[in-house]
């Protein structure tokens, strides 16, 4: 048992712990900063927990109509986008998993080509304009409907289901659709949840579409808003100004303290809310990741 504590093991454990710290610490710091009094944070010295605890930054975020609207857009696109993606992907992949389907190799090849050679941003941009998707909520949903890798992962999964199951269901008088709904789908919970989390996360995290294909402020998602906050400070100043007016109008002693929120503390609160849902959800799907990653790597 002494071997367990060899020099090799100790170095290995120490390095891995250091790595884990690097992965987690930034998020701990942001949480501490966003829960700390904004003006106080400016003095620096926050490292692991808030010094002057306050929820003021979060309250301000929830009061700001622009930020709240961005959250609504993000939630709406994540839910609608993920659901539609799952529906069309399972159907497509299930059809491709039928070894008897004439033309299935051609279809597989047809959807593989775009993964090695694409048109690039500009033709895509023109296409979005031509399809009137520019400045439409649907620009978040429709272009993200299909994904080659997700189709391959699902197809490979479906192919692993023993065909005897379907055959016996057929003998029982089930049709193709009934087999799919009543036999295949209930068996595919793990692969569906992996694709769901991939797609959900990619919808939640996408700032690019909102930045380049949306100019209507009412359609901007959270990540795009955060990106604007990063490059421009107007949005932040507005919110802070409103907060200061609010504080100034109430002539109470608390009011004379006026604003304790800084653009930076507000930004950290938005960042925290933009991140926390993902951090809560993804560990639950961990056990499926390996399977998903493995299936995805089996190509052709």
């Amino acid at each position, binding site marked *: 048992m002494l071997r*367990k504590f060899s020099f*090799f093991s100790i170095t*290995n454990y120490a390095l*891995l712990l250091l*790595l*884990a710290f690097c*992965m*987690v610490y*930034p*998020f701990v710091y*942001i949480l501490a900063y966003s829960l700390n009094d904004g003006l106080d*944070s*400016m003095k*620096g*010295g*926050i490292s692991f927990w808030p010094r002057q605890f306050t929820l003021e930054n979060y309250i301000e975020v929830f009061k700001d109509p622009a930020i709240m609207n961005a959250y609504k857009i993000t939630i709406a696109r994540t839910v609608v986008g993920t659901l539609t993606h799952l529906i*069309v992907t399972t*159907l*497509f992949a*299930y*059809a*491709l998993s039928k070894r*008897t*389907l*004439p033309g299935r190799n051609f*279809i597989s090849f*047809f*959807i593989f080509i*775009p993964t*090695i*050679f*694409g*048109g*690039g*941003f*500009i*033709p*895509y*941009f*023109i*296409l979005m304009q*031509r399809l009137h998707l520019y400045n439409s909520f649907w620009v978040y949903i429709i272009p993200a*409907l299909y994904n080659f890798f997700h189709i391959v992962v699902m197809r490979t999964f479906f192919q692993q289901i023993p065909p005897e199951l379907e055959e016996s269901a057929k003998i029982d008088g089930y049709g193709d*659709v009934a087999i799919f709904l009543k036999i295949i789908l209930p068996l595919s919970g793990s692969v569906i949840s992996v694709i769901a989390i991939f797609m959900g996360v990619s919808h939640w*995290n996408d*700032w690019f579409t909102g930045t380049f294909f949306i100019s209507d402020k009412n359609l901007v998602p959270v*990540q795009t808003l*955060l990106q604007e906050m*990063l490059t421009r400070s107007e949005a932040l100043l507005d919110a802070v100004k409103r907060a200061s007016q609010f504080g100034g109008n109430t002539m109470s002693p608390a009011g004379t303290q006026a604003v304790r929120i800084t653009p*930076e503390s507000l930004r950290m609160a938005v*960042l925290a809310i*933009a*991140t926390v849902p*993902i*951090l809560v959800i*993804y560990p639950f799907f*961990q056990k499926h*990741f*390996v399977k998903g*990653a493995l299936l995805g790597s089996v190509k052709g």
Partner: protein
Amino acid sequence: MEVTAAMTREAQKNRQQRKLLRTIWKHRIFYLFVIPGVVWFIVFCYLPLYGLTLAFKDFSYAGGIFGGKYAGLTYFKQFFDYYLSTDIIRNTVVISFLKLIIGFPAPIILAIMLNEVKNHAFKRSLQTISYLPYFVSWVVVVTLLNRLLTTDGGPVNEMLHSLGLKPIMFMGNVDWFYPLIIGSFVWKTIGWNSIIYLAAIAGIDPELYEAAKIDGASRLRQMWHVTLPGIRDITIILFILGIGSLMSAGYEQMLLFKNPATEAIGSVLDTYSIEAGIKQGRLSYATAVGFFQSAIAFILILVVNRIGKKVSDVSLF
């Protein structure tokens, strides 16, 4: 004799055709599942591919993707005549090359290190933690880095201060630009990319390790002679894929990281194409830049795939 043979052949062909039609008809419901997807791929993947022809045409809004006058290689020439084009190409290659030589082996090393952890619960939690950054957006990463690295009360500079060192302006600093780009890339992807190697390692026959132990191999030797050969094939496949993106420096990250101070070393083909197209409205020119990028990436994939096939019988297609 010959006539009857031809007739039977004809009949056979007919029968086969009818059989095919019948199979197709039997699968009609599955075609219904596939058709919307095929249409989608035509519209969202093949139309932009066709849109690449814009690089050889004068784009006009009236003509759209299909119209426009033939312009030959004008726009390619324009790009190569542009005094910064060599810089942009060099930046792209340097950044993606650095990402490849540092970012590619990093998850392999992590997977091997994790594999040496025998405590199951500890290993699992380490893994979960290491995926974490993969699931946050680049916007979040860049905002995080800005806050952590600022000279304005950021924890990194406070630590430097307490060590008696001078504060460093990290962001927007030419000297720190590449280390930050590569570092944040590795930070974000190392855990996730290690999954596949861990799975491959798990698939290695334990008897091989036993045999190596009996031969007196140390743990490092076991790694070298058993683990590494065991993940060789998957490594080659992923390397081929990695080479394919050598002409792409990661546009999301680059768009977010770049600022006027680092423009000279941070301008890459992806960002330049977007900027020239959207900000300056030079759509044909920007398409030509994108075309150049895709074409080289494509050639790189073909070449590396061929090499992979020769060296080890492993290939993508």
